[in-house]
């Protein structure tokens, strides 16, 4: 049994033209038992920046609380809105600090730059290696299934409605197999 699949959970994000779409499944379990079916895995960090956390649930809560706290401090000190790339670096550094005793969570940052509205998505492994492609990212137990489906559904410059359809259909198809 892997610690990353103890609670289960998958998060996906896709980038379009001046928009991003983030989706997750709603199941939380304890190994084979399902405890609840309304647990979302995406959390708001800022107005236009969302953090998706797959993996071990208690570590996701710890990482989430630490990131929200640090983001508030940042905005107070710098007196400006935080950018998604900075959130990603913040999470990456937090995870790398625990390189030899890692948090068992795979985070995903998706958002728009607060001023230019440029989309930014990135996924990380459990020790904070950032991979920021321009198309889509997936993390969690269903990562492998989703990556294949997204390759087919994603196109350049999708608008918000198309992007929503593509992301949700990818999630629905991929999760049939997880």
């Amino acid at each position, binding site marked *: 049994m892997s610690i990353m699949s103890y609670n289960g959970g998958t998060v996906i994000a896709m980038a379009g033209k001046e928009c991003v779409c983030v989706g997750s499944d709603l199941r939380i379990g304890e190994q084979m038992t399902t405890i609840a079916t309304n647990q979302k895995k995406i959390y708001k960090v800022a107005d236009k920046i969302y953090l998706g956390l797959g993996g071990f649930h208690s570590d996701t809560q710890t990482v989430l609380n630490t990131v929200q706290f640090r983001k508030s401090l940042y905005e107070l000190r710098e007196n400006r809105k935080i950018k998604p790339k900075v959130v990603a670096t913040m999470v990456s550094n937090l995870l790398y600090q*625990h390189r030899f005793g890692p948090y068992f969570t795979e985070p995903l940052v998706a958002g728009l730059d607060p001023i230019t509205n440029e989309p930014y998505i990135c996924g990380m*492994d459990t020790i904070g290696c950032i991979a920021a492609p321009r198309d889509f990212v997936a993390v969690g137990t269903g*990562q492998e299934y989703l990556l294949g489906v997204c390759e087919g559904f994603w196109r350049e410059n999708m608008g918000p409605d198309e992007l929503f359809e593509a992301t949700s259909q990818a999630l629905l198809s991929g999760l049939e197999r997880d």
Partner: protein
Amino acid sequence: MASTLVYEQKPSMKESAFSFDNCARNMALEKLGMSGPKLRSTGTTIVAVTYKDGVVMGADSRATAGNIIADKHCEKVHKLTESIYACGAGTAADLDQVTKMLASNLQLIELNTERKARVITAVRRAKQHLFRYQGHVGAYLLIGGVDPTGPHLYEVHAHGSSCTFPFAADGSGSYAAISILERDFKFGMTQEEAEALTQRALEAGMHGDNASGNSFNLVIITKEGTVFKGPMVPDFCVKPQSNDIEYKFKPGATTVLKQKIIKYEVVESMDIE
């Protein structure tokens, strides 16, 4: 009877800056049979070649996590200074952090000494950091560049050993790449020959190794300046057939159960000069 409470001052930020808080819990979990997560490694083919006037370095761009490709366009050629670059193989997060640390340290050295940093300085910093962690920081680096003493190339391994070479290859694809280099390398090559050799060695690695591929980046460092070329895609890495059918979903295809629309507060700010 007064009982005294003794507070132990927890060192807030030790010099190492690694936090070992979770270690006890993680070891206990492992004893329970919970296997840990797979770390993202860069798989990789990295190649570097010195020639008459400088150094050519190149790396592929695939990052793997177990059997899947986690990143198709990962940057493995890291800039340390304008004329010193490092190519990395090993654990991806370790490489990113070690090269970021080396780059900041070198910049500080350049500012403090008012001289261009030397390749050997980067190598020594890297070695000393990696030896301290006895190989647990999985970073295998090829550090190359041109400094006031000429062009140099060093290979640094995760346990802290380093060696200097006229040409080197590292990573899982290095077996294929090094055979090309051994066969075709000669001293005193021109820039075009060195570039072509690096490209051939990279392509051999990307072809033969399943953990390397997608595209590659090259950097050519000379006394006059640095040229970064990439990403370049060799023929065998191009997607064989593009998607014939465009998946277009009708708006409304997905049933929406609940919808919540949050409008942002747009705050107008004025610059008061």
